C-alpha cells in the first residue's frame, strides 16, 4: 500500500518485507506488550482479532491510542482488511487496487484448476493433528488445485488417528517447515504405514509464506501449484519404470 515508512513498531514475528526487520520490535503479538507499544507513540495500532488482543485493544484505547482489530483467518478476510487499513491511513485508492487483487483470489470467476492431487496437512505428528475445512491452508490447497483429504472435518484443525490418514491415502503430506527438511516423524515406523510418507511425498511449506493469510497469499497459491505440477511431472517421468514389461 506504500505506508511502510510510517510503521514505527512490529511484533517479533513480522519478518516481511526484509525492510520490516529494520523497524523496532515491540515483542510478541498475542497479546502485545502494551507499554512497549505505547512507548513508540503510534497514531494507530493494528492487531489480529483474537482473545488476548481484545483486552489489549481496550487498554490501548483507554490511554488514547487508536486501535483496530483485524480478522485475518481466511482468504476472504484479506480484501476487507486492506480496505480498512486504506481508510485509516488515507491511502484508499492504493488500498482499493490491492484489495481487488486480494478479492480475486477467492472469486469463483477465476479458473480453478480441477483438483488433480490429494493432500493432507499434518501440523503435528503425535498425536496427529491435521488441517480441516475451516482453515486458510485448506483454501490455499483448493486454490492451487489440490484436494484436502480432511476437508470433511469442519474445524480449522483437529486431532485424528493415524489410521484415518492411512485410509484416506493422500498423495502428498504437507507440513509447515522453515528448515525445509523432511519432518522427523517420517522415520517413525508407525508413520511408514502412510503411503505418501513411505514414498517421501512431502510438500515442505515455509511458515512465513504459507502459515497465515496476507498480501503474499497470491504468491503462496502460485508456489503451491508449482510444487504440485513439478512433482506431477516427476511422477510421470518415473512411471514407466514401474510398468511391467509385458503390459
Amino acid at each position, binding site marked *: 500500500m506504500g505506508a511502510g515508512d510510517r510503521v514505527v513498531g512490529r511484533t*517479533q514475528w513480522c519478518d516481511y518485507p526484509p525492510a520490516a526487520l529494520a523497524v523496532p520490535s515491540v515483542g510478541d503479538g498475542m497479546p502485545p506488550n502494551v507499554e512497549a507499544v505505547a512507548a513508540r507513540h503510534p497514531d494507530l495500532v493494528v492487531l489480529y482479532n483474537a482473545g488476548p488482543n481484545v483486552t489489549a485493544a481496550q487498554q490501548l484505547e483507554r490511554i488514547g491510542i487508536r486501535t483496530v482489530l483485524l480478522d485475518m483467518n481466511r482468504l476472504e478476510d484479506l480484501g476487507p482488511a486492506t480496505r480498512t487499513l486504506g481508510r485509516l491511513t488515507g491511502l484508499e485508492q492504493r488500498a482499493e487496487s490491492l484489495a481487488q487483487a486480494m478479492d480475486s483470489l477467492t472469486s469463483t470467476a477465476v479458473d480453478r484448476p480441477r483438483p488433480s492431487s490429494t493432500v493432507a496437512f499434518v501440523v503435528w505428528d*503425535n498425536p496427529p493433528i491435521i488441517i480441516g475445512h475451516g482453515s486458510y491452508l485448506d483454501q490455499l490447497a483448493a486454490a492451487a488445485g489440490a484436494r484436502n483429504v480432511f476437508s470433511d*472435518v469442519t474445524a480449522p484443525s483437529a486431532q485424528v488417528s*493415524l489410521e484415518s490418514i492411512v485410509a484416506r491415502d493422500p498423495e502428498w503430506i504437507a507440513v509447515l517447515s522453515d528448515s525445509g527438511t523432511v519432518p*522427523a516423524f517420517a522415520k*517413525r515406523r508407525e508413520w511408514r504405514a502412510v503411503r505418501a510418507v513411505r514414498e517421501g511425498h512431502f510438500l515442505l511449506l515455509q*511458515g512465513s509464506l504459507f502459515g497465515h493469510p496476507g498480501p503474499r497469499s497470491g504468491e503462496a497459491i502460485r508456489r503451491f501449484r508449482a510444487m504440485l505440477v513439478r512433482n506431477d511431472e516427476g511422477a510421470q517421468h518415473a512411471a514407466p519404470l514401474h510398468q511391467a514389461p509385458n503390459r
Partner: protein
Amino acid sequence: MKWTLLVVVAVLALVTSVILGPAAVPLGELLHSDIVWNLRVPRALLAFLVGGSLGVAGASLQALVRNPLADPFLLGLSGGAGLGAVVAIALHVSGPWALPIAAFAGALAALGLVYRLGLIGGAALDPRILLLGGVAIGAFAAAVTTAIVSLADAAELRNAFLWLWGGLSGASWDSVLLVVLYIPIPLAVLLAASRPLDLLALGEESAGYLGADVEVVKRRVYLAASLLTAAAVAVSGVIGFVGLVVPHLARLTWGHRHRVLLPAAFLGGGALLTFADTLARTAVAPRELPVGVVTALIGVPVFALLLRRWTIA
C-alpha cells in the same frame, strides 16, 4: 469365576480394539491388512501394557503411602516428564525418539529428586514427606515448563503439551517391543513385594514386628512403581485415572492381598485403557479424542460411586 470374567473382559477389550477403527477394514481382510498389523495391533497391545503398568503402579503406591488418593503421577513424574519434553523442543533436539527419551529422562530426574527429599533428615521415605515432596517437585517442574513455553519462541512448544497428554498415537512395534522388554523387571519386583505390602497396611512399626524389612521394601516399591510410570509417560504421555480407579475397583473385588490384587490391577488397567482407546479412536471418527479424556469420563463416575460406597459403609 472372578478371574475368568476378568480375563474374558481383557481379551474382549483387545479383540474389539483390533476389529474396530476409523478405517473400515472388512472382517475377512483383518489378518492381511496393513492398517491392522502395523497400527491397530501394536496400539492395542501398547494400551494394554501401559494400562496394566499404571494399574499396578497405582496399587503399589497407594499401599506404600497408605493414601487411597495416590496415583502414579502424584509423585512429580508428570511434571518432570513435561519439563523434559519441553526442554528437548526448546533446544531443537530432533530425531524420531527425541520426545519420549527426553520425557523419560525428565521423569527420572523428578523421581530422583523426590526420592532424595524422601530421605532427608533420616525421613526414610515417610509417606507424608514423599507426597509433599512429589507435589512440590511437580509444581516446580510445571513452573519451569511454563516459563520456557512463554519465553522461548519455538512454535512447536504448544504441541509439547499435546504430546504429553497425547495418548497412544505413537504406538508402533518398536514401542511395544521396548515396553515388553522393560516392564517385566519392575513388575516382578512389585509382585515379589506383595507380602510386605500387605503388612505395610498395618503401619510401618507393626510391619517391622511381623518380619518385613520396611526400609528396603519401601525403597524397592517406590523405585519400581515410579520406573513403571516413567516408561508409561515416555510411550504414551500422562494418562489419568487408570492408576487411581483400577486399584480401588480391584481391591473391592479381590480384597487387600497384593499377590492377587496386583495381577488383577494389571488385567483391569489393561482392559480399561484398551477399551477407552477404542472409544477415543472411533467415537468421533475421523477425529480422535485424547484417551486421557475418555479414561477420566469413565473413571470419574466410577470413582464417585466408590466414594459413595465408602462413606455409606
